[in-house]
């Protein structure tokens, strides 16, 4: 993808917005000022933001767990995310579902699920719809190394390839399924090589380098749009924090490994890249960061001040059953 200076600044903005939002929410949780326990993608933003950045209006994204970056890049507001996190009446689900898996189909964000891997067959189905209606839109689906062991992953790979569907499968390989390292998960450290067995193109990129992620995903998106079928893109990355913010940073991962990866911070890398091009200066980046910080602050303030759910106003049964079925309640 040829990115203009404006595109590059916008991409940096999305990266910083994701990082800053998650850091603020994590700090609030650790200071016991917020009940919301984040499960962050800090360290993985180049993958979640970079891949989502390749989509256009009308495309769909299917987040897995650590994909706040995908939601924000697709246009979900920080305010909305924090409303979801705090389970407010104004949340997308009205208090029925987790902010980690929140969706907004009007922005092309497909509602997620707690079940690891389970979003992939759903993304497959949306891709089926797009081919059925002869649309040139595509679906981008995220999953982790953990999900690559599930049958759902196999289903999405085999069906999308056999049916030649417009699906781009992006693996956030952060080397751990909760606490389980790759050596307990699979025989080979690489996931992208499995694509060959499905007759699909498999690509591996450095998940800390947003330029590389954008290049690979953009190519796959264009291919899918043109009717060329699915692609598996494995992004080697790393989670800088614990599984969730209630898990200690010292969760069994070797300290040396952690520090090696922390030295490959995707935001630092991209910042350095932008500055080295001489077309964006420190001042411009600081301006973006201050703008983002203000947006996050305003979003937080609004969401924390928003009314709480009250039991007497809860609408429990609406939308459990469709309204064209001749009944209102379960029996």
């Amino acid at each position: 993808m040829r990115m203009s200076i404006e595109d590059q600044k916008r991409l940096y903005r999305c990266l910083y917005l994701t990082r800053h939002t998650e850091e603020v929410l994590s700090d609030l949780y650790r200071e016991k000022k917020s009940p919301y326990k984040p499960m962050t993608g800090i360290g993985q933003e180049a993958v979640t933001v970079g891949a989502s950045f390749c989509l256009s209006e009308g495309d769909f994204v299917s987040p897995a767990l650590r994909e706040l970056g995908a939601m924000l890049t697709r246009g979900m507001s920080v305010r909305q995310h924090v409303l979801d996190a705090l389970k407010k009446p104004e949340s997308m689900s009205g208090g029925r579902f987790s902010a980690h898996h929140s969706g907004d189909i009007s922005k092309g964000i497909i509602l997620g699920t707690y079940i690891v891997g389970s979003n992939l067959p759903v993304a497959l189905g949306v891709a089926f719809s797009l081919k059925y209606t002869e649309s040139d839109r595509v679906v981008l689906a995220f999953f982790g190394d953990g999900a690559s062991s599930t049958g759902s992953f196999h289903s999405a790979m085999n069906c999308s390839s056999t049916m030649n569907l417009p699906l781009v499968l992006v693996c956030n390989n952060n080397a751990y399924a909760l606490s389980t390292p790759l050596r307990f998960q699979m025989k080979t450290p690489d996931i992208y090589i499995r694509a060959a067995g499905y007759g699909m193109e498999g690509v591996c990129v450095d998940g800390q380098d947003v330029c590389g992620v954008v290049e690979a995903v953009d190519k796959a998106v264009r291919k899918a749009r043109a009717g060329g079928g699915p692609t598996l893109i494995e992004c080697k990355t790393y989670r800088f924090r614990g599984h969730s913010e209630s898990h200690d940073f010292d969760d069994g991962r070797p300290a040396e490994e952690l520090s090696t990866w922390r030295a490959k911070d995707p935001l630092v890398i991209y910042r350095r890249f932008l500055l080295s091009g001489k077309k964006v200066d420190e001042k411009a980046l600081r301006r973006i960061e201050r703008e983002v910080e203000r947006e996050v602050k305003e979003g937080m303030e609004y969401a924390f001040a928003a009314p709480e759910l009250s039991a007497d106003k809860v609408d429990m049964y609406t939308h459990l059953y469709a309204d064209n079925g001749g009944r209102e309640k379960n029996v």
Partner: protein
Amino acid sequence: MKTTISGALRLALRDEMTRDETVFLIGEDIGYYGGIFNVTKGLIRQFGERRVVDSPLDETGILGIGVGAAISGLRPVVEIMYVDFITTCMDQVINNAAKMPWLSQGQLKMPLTIRANFGTGKGDGPQQSQCVEAWFMNVPGLTVVEPSTPKDAYGLLLGSIRYDGAVLFLEHKLLYALQGEMEPDGRALPLGKGAVRQEGKDATLVSCGLMLHKAMRAAQELLEEGISLEVIDVRTVKPLDLELILESVEKTGRLVTVEENPYTGGWGLTVTDAVNRELFGKLKEAPLRIASLDVPVPVSNVMEEMVVPNVERIKREAGRLVRHGKGRQ
């Protein structure tokens, strides 16, 4: 016209696919082969491979395509070859299909119909003969439909496809060849409405599917012995038409459910619970449930016949309830 249940189902699929371009079929061997019980035979020649999709042998993939297509504007009719195979894709059915509309506050619709054959009677054994309605009754958001006549099969399938929520549409494999009068008039039957198949005054038999036909036989034979039974076909197992059932039991004072599923935890418990709760003081006898034994379905026809309620057993137990009370052996 006179046709079979499988013929009526095929007509419903044909009519709805003709009427609505967003309706498509996907499943194992449903295209050129025509489906394991020939329900979709010929449809691929009429509608092509785009709308009648022969899928890989992968229920999770089939259901995933169903769920994803349903939330993005299509009306999928997916076929699970034998309902027992649904165990391999329960995640999609229970965690996604049933919940997404509620979790999204209606932003997502789930016009998904899952067709599957089920039931005993063919010696198909423990993983190809199960009667699974009760598994799904405990899942808020799902609707479970079970037709017992060609007319109902046609109308209920149209109703299921047009409904904006997830429906499990169960077809008893011994009933596919059952003949009856119906008109392919494009009219859907409402979901959640039962039907009184025979009026009576001594007890109310509540059933569905194949067991409904056994209950009817038993009721007709008992009539000759002077016992008059009202027979209700629930048609939709979830939600149950409790209004119709309660009205009938209030009149007869006795309730018998006739179920093909294993006794413990069977769908009839929802009926007896409602009857006990609403009509306790008005009952002449405690409700009686006739169901399969609490064992897997064996392949031996001799053993299968012992496991599943038959006409003799229904006659014996329902007759005893009316004559002497205490229908249980």
